[in-house]
């Protein structure tokens, strides 16, 4: 299985073959997770630290469960309340943790690039659990696995990503991944929530949702942050739902077998109609959560394998 990476910082450095390898491995963990005995030993003896500088429930839980199922010792550090408040810099925090000799570091940070910076300073494998508006690679990978299982393939699909593209790391990672796997990506949203220069990413941009949804295979909704709802970027919640909320009428424009996705947590009645979210024939939102654990198990397994190989090589090369 080819996955020549020390860290998982983003989708950008991954080649299509690496993505496929990771998803194939994740499939085996889906089966494991559905079985009676959910335990693997791939991370046995290793220490995994989850450092979340930004609040998270589901992503942190997913990483924690993934680590525990593979036998790692998992520690959660809620960094919003911790040393940064006391003035410690990110790098000092990283060095402190590094001295505790973790093997896997899962990091979420409110600033773009912060996880890259941290990865330069530690000796372990780093997984980006979301940095600012930059990337959220495991989310894109779990979305990819969900799509592949629902559609039977991960290429030549029309995928619409709808909502707040500008502030979304999920959108960026998905745009990169779906592009690498040769899908057509459409971005739908009000122009105030569309980043500058986005058309140069090889995507089609729509500000009319009805037009954008025509004949798509996958509808990926994004969460609209509460603080962006009033006046700043959009006039109001209700106007947003009217124009960009996914309801049955708009979804009818997509292909009849189109699936509906959402990274969660959802704002029912803002970006997505509650009934669609719950429609088991269309919505794969629960599957996404399930795939999340499997994809994170696969990612940590591959990085741990590379880490062990690198350490064995270092030992073999070291004198004495």
């Amino acid at each position, binding site marked *: 299985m080819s996955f020549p990476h020390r860290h998982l910082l983003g989708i950008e450095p991954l080649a299509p073959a690496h993505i496929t390898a990771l998803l194939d491995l994740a499939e085996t963990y889906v089966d494991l997770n559905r079985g009676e005995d959910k335990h693997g030993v791939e991370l046995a003896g290793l220490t995994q630290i989850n450092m979340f500088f930004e609040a998270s429930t589901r992503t942190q839980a997913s990483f924690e469960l993934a680590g525990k199922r593979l036998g790692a010792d998992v520690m959660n550090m809620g960094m919003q309340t911790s040393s940064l408040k006391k003035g410690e*810099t990110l790098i000092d925090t990283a060095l402190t943790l590094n001295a505790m000799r973790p093997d896997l570091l899962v990091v979420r940070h409110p600033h*773009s690039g912060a996880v890259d*910076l941290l990865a330069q300073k530690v000796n372990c494998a780093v997984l980006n659990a979301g*940095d*600012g508006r930059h990337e959220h690679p495991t989310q894109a990978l779990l979305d990819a696995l969900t799509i592949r299982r629902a559609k039977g393939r991960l290429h030549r699909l029309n995928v619409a990503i709808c909502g707040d593209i500008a502030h979304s790391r999920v959108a960026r990672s998905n745009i990169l991944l779906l592009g690498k796997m040769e899908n057509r990506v459409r971005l739908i949203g009000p122009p105030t929530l569309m980043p*500058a220069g*986005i058309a140069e990413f090889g995507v089609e941009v729509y500000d009319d949702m009805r037009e954008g949804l025509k004949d798509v295979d996958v509808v990926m909704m994004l969460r609209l942050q509460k603080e962006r709802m009033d006046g700043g970027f959009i006039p109001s919640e209700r106007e947003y739902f009217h124009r960009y909320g996914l309801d049955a009428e708009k979804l009818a424009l997509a292909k009849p077998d189109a699936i509906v996705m959402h990274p969660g947590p959802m704002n029912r009645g803002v970006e997505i109609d509650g009934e669609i979210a719950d429609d088991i024939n269309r919505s794969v939102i629960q599957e996404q959560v399930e795939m999340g654990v499997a994809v994170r198990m696969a990612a940590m397994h591959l990085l741990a394998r590379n880490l062990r190989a690198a350490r064995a090589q270092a030992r073999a090369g070291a004198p004495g």
Partner: protein
Amino acid sequence: MRTLLTNARLIDPEAQTDAPGWLRIEGGRILAMGPGETAAGDEDVIDCGAKCLAPGIVDIGVKVCEPGERHKESYGSAGLAAAAGGVTTMVTRPDTTPAIDSPEVLEFVTRRAREASPVHVLHMAALTKNREGREMTEIGFLMDAGAVAFTDCDRVVADTKVFSRALTYARSLGALVIAHPQEPGLSAGACATSGKFASLRGLPAVTPMAERMGLDRDIALVEMTGARYHADQITTARALPALARAKANGFDVTAGVSVHHLTLNEFDVSDYRTFFKVKPPLRAEDDRMAVVEAVQGGLIDIISSMHTPQDEESKRLPFEEAAAGAVALETLLPALMRLYHAEQLTLPEIFRAIALNPARRLGRDCGRLAACAPADLVLFDPDAPFVLDRAKLQSKSKNTPFDGARMQGRILATWVDGAIVYRRE
């Protein structure tokens, strides 16, 4: 005592010539100069080895971190860096802690500069108290104490009424006001230029239009008040027509640009390299090329280092949180040699922008190769290649974007008032 510099390639920004010749110094001034060879009399003779001899650089916008952050840069370390970079006059910024906004603080830095710096230092003072954009400083007293220009540096005086009054008052004293053209509402929180790169990296970005809007506002106020105005950095193509119109209308307006905006673009930030974080942020390649052309044509008058020392702690942070700015006193000339070797600017054009024009704008008689002008000179080899090692910089802070870069252009010697202040071993 006389000194004769022979066998030189004289770079004369006034005549816009680049030709072999000689130059004679006496009593701290240029005594005479001429083409070809001359017979040496009873004097010291220095053979320039056919290298370039040009007027010393006058660098408007140098940050020396006294008072407040002397660990980042002192007048001593900045002065050594300047001498090593061929900068014979540093024109310093008032964005210190506290700001240079009163005659007392100005007197302190004037004394420190006199004690510690081997090159000339001229000081700018803040336009508003503590650079807060609310009340104007004592412009008259500060001028009496030697302030050569008034600026709040990278802070925009957002209140138009405050700014127009400050310009009006400055006008009555003939004071030069230097502003940072930017629409502060649009640029708030931004650390990159909007476009594909900023979107890919997920960085908060500002549209290049914000610079034009800031310049448009400032020019309208200049038209209203008749003030002497200099825009510190024009870095985008869209601002250039507004600048050209203001000049065509005869307003007393000039503009500058930093060496970084002439030689780097937004993609150099790459994987969040904070040494490339400057203010305004690096621009698109099209903008960079337009600005180089504007320097070539004389629309942009002045090139500065915008020397901004930052310690490692201020830079080793996530990109958004990291401090902006780069040191450049020593890399100004070598970086500009990239444009010379790319045949985008000639050496006389470069020295027009780094010596003659800034001196003229401040009413100084340096920046020229002419009889009676001060013997502030730089001797350099525009072709000598080297790889920049930031550890070897004279500045206390080593935050250069050119670390490890292959560069061409070595400063061989620097004279201030006829005395050698730097000589390359």
